[in-house]
């Protein structure tokens, strides 16, 4: 067996209620590294790409990486791989916290879920003891209560729980899976797939160990990595001090913070919702995921004067009237994109979304689209039930609950903004790709992000090719965000690297401090596989191409490699990036060429053979 892995996977058939332990396919683990790549390979083998995402035939995979559960800094990640209901593409959402590591300690590398349970249940894993337990009493409960109840009734206070909230149960197309209360496999509706299987949660307690192939070399590599992270500005200063929210002011100053559903790109209240403000006035403590030496997580608190308005009064307890976060993406989606400049409202909305199991990005962005529909007269008060004006914190908080429970207008928001805007005759208000809403960077002001969004296999996503790193932050080298030159190349490289990092079990935030070549020694020592830079980036490329082929089979073809009209044709009206549109047409052909695909973006036979995907 390859080092780092336990060598065993769990196959759970929810229809029949059977649980099988199978050996891990170590050839795939080697070729795809693990995590996202390994999940894609398994899904390719046994998941029919044409099925309805909510059908019992859809598979739901929870996959760790070889470094998950080791002391490699940020070795906390697990990946949820399935066919997503928002995009109908393969989707890969990952989360940190302690759940992935705990699964390894219990003795399993991944879980494959098949079928649909006859009634609500949850999966209980305590080392060798694996069973499906009744969850009728948990159905309808929020994330906090579910986690608490499972810990209490099991008598295992150290159990780590990954669960859906009411949003997942009600098949909200952007429902998330939450673990450790506030860590989310957020995007693309993985929580709704879990809900469609009537699986409420997976609770894990493991007391076993994770072994690496070459312990001595591994420890040296792991310490070298931690030292590097301590020496980098972003991972030693920016993220620990301000969290991901450090980006609000940075992106706003570049005129790239999409505001009011991308109508403008500078938010006048950015300072009020920024990381600086959060840190100075609301931060209680930093919170790390398993083995993370960066600790970008925030525990935040609403000050006394706002507590009356934003206390989470319906819950039995709440963190000093607060929660974890807000993260940059959430602060943007529910803040700038909805025009809400009230940080305390965002902290509460974030808490609500986490408890209800909603993806904060897609929820915020969908509400923003609804607000544009409302302000432009396409939907009336009778339908929305309340004024949906940009800037309304009340609308934000009310609609979070209504969306999760599919009440009133929330039932339409729950379908995501592509379906919502099409329904009201304004598909041009949908800001996203392949049905998934954009994250927090306007690609008119950061050209490379446009290409990354348009070609992302799971719809618009910032994690698959974070060219902001080069175009704004200057990592690894500074590029002009307004030009298209070199963007195809860097997008391809970033996509392959992110695919590789996502497959190791490490967090992609590491890449702010270290390059892939610096992560390599850890991976080699842990697995015992003689990976090289070429092999590792090729593994990333293999994963990328496999996801692309899967989407082709699913019927989501290259015609969806595009951006909304607003991004391609409507120049930014004001601010530092005034006059810019995204010039996707200048980048896409070069990108296809660099990928070795045909002119219209089809994966060629030669490329398939090269990557072993024939």
């Amino acid at each position, binding site marked *: 067996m390859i080092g780092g892995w336990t060598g065993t996977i769990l196959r759970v058939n929810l229809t029949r209620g059977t649980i099988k332990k199978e050996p891990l396919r170590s050839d795939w683990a080697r070729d795809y590294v693990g995590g996202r790549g390994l999940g894609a390979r398994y899904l390719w083998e046994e998941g029919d790409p044409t099925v309805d995402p909510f059908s019992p035939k859809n598979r739901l995979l929870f996959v760790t990486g070889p470094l998950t559960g080791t002391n490699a800094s940020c070795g906390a990640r697990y990946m949820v791989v399935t066919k997503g209901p928002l995009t109908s593409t393969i989707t890969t959402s990952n989360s940190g916290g302690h759940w992935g590591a705990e699964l390894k300690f219990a003795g399993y590398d991944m879980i494959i879920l098949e079928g649909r349970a006859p009634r609500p249940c949850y999966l209980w894993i305590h080392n060798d003891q694996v069973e499906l337990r009744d969850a009728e009493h948990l159905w309808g409960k929020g994330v906090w209560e579910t986690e608490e109840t499972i810990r209490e009734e099991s008598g295992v206070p150290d159990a780590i729980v990954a669960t859906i909230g009411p949003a997942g149960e009600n098949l909200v197309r952007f429902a998330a899976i939450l673990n450790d209360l506030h860590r989310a496999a957020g995007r693309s509706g993985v929580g709704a797939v879990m809900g469609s299987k009537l699986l409420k949660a997976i609770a894990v307690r*493991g007391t076993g*160990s994770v072994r690496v192939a070459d312990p001595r070399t591994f420890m040296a590599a792991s310490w070298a990595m*931690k030292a590097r992270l301590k020496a980098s500005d972003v991972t030693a200063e920016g993220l620990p001090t301000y969290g991901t929210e450090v980006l609000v002011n940075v992106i706003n100053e570049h005129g790239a913070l999409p505001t009011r559903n991308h109508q403008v790109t500078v938010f006048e209240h950015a300072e009020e919702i920024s990381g600086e403000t959060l840190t100075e006035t609301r931060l209680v403590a930093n919170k790390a995921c398993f083995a993370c030496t960066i600790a970008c997580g925030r525990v935040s608190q609403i000050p006394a004067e706002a507590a009356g308005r934003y206390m989470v009064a319906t819950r039995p307890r709440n963190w000093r009237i607060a929660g974890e976060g807000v993260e940059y993406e959430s602060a943007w989606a529910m803040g700038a994109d909805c025009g809400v400049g009230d940080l305390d409202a965002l902290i509460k909305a974030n808490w609500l979304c986490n408890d209800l199991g909603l993806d904060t990005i897609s929820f915020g962005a969908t509400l923003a689209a609804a607000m544009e529909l409302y302000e432009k007269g396409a939907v009336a008060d009778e339908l929305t039930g309340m004024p949906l004006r940009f800037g309304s914190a009340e609308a934000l908080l009310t609609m979070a609950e209504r969306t999760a429970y599919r009440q009133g207008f929330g039932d339409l928001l729950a379908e995501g903004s592509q379906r919502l805007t099409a329904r009201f005759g304004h598909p041009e208000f949908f800001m996203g790709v392949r049905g998934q809403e954009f994250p927090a960077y306007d690609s008119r002001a950061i050209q490379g992000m446009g290409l990354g969004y348009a070609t992302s296999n799971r719809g618009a996503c910032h994690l698959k090719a974070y060219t902001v790193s080069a175009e704004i932050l200057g990592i690894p080298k500074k590029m002009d965000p307004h030009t298209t030159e070199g963007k195809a190349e860097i997008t391809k490289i970033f996509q392959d690297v992110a695919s590789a990092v996502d497959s190791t079990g490490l967090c992609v935030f590491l890449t702010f401090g270290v390059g892939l070549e610096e992560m390599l020694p850890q991976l080699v020592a842990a697995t015992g596989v003689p990976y090289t830079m070429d092999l590792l980036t090729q593994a990333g490329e293999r994963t990328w191409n496999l996801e692309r082929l899967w989407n082709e089979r699913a019927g989501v073809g290259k015609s969806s490699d595009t951006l909304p009209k607003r991004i391609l044709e409507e120049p930014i009206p004001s601010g530092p990036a005034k006059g810019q549109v995204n010039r996707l047409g200048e980048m896409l052909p070069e990108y296809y060429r660099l990928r070795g695909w045909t002119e219209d973006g089809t994966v060629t036979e030669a490329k398939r053979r090269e990557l072993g995907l024939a």
Partner: protein
Amino acid sequence: MAKQLRIIPERCTGCIQCELACSWVQTGTFQPARSLIRVHLFDDQASYAPYTCFQCDEAWCMTACPVNAITISPVAAKAVVPDCCVGCGLCVIACPYGTVWYSPDTHKAVKCDLCAGDPACVVACPTGAIEYVETPAADWLGPWAVDLNKSYAGIRAGAEP
């Protein structure tokens, strides 16, 4: 005054690198369940406190041991001598702080021995929440938790903060 572990819970981020390091020293693998220092969660996972034996002067574990298998080591740690330990578990019961364990692998008692003067958890902690310094032996966790809970008692009852 002997050097021992001084823990500053306010600096802890809950990453459990200390647990990973401790389990590594003992097993050569990553196995937090075997760690002799444990990060405890308070306040609904908003506060953390790494806790282990603070080498108390009373040393109930030593008093309870019927075969004198716990000795004071050169760095003034109360250390189990595995060859002498018969695995009766009395020290585990006797310790009022819950920081002596019984190993199901070796069938013997295990507890923090300060890694013979170079504690792995101190090296591993990325935020300096665990220091190895001269400091009086004292049970800090109890008073700390009481203080923490006091400040949230009102909030938990639903009052304005």
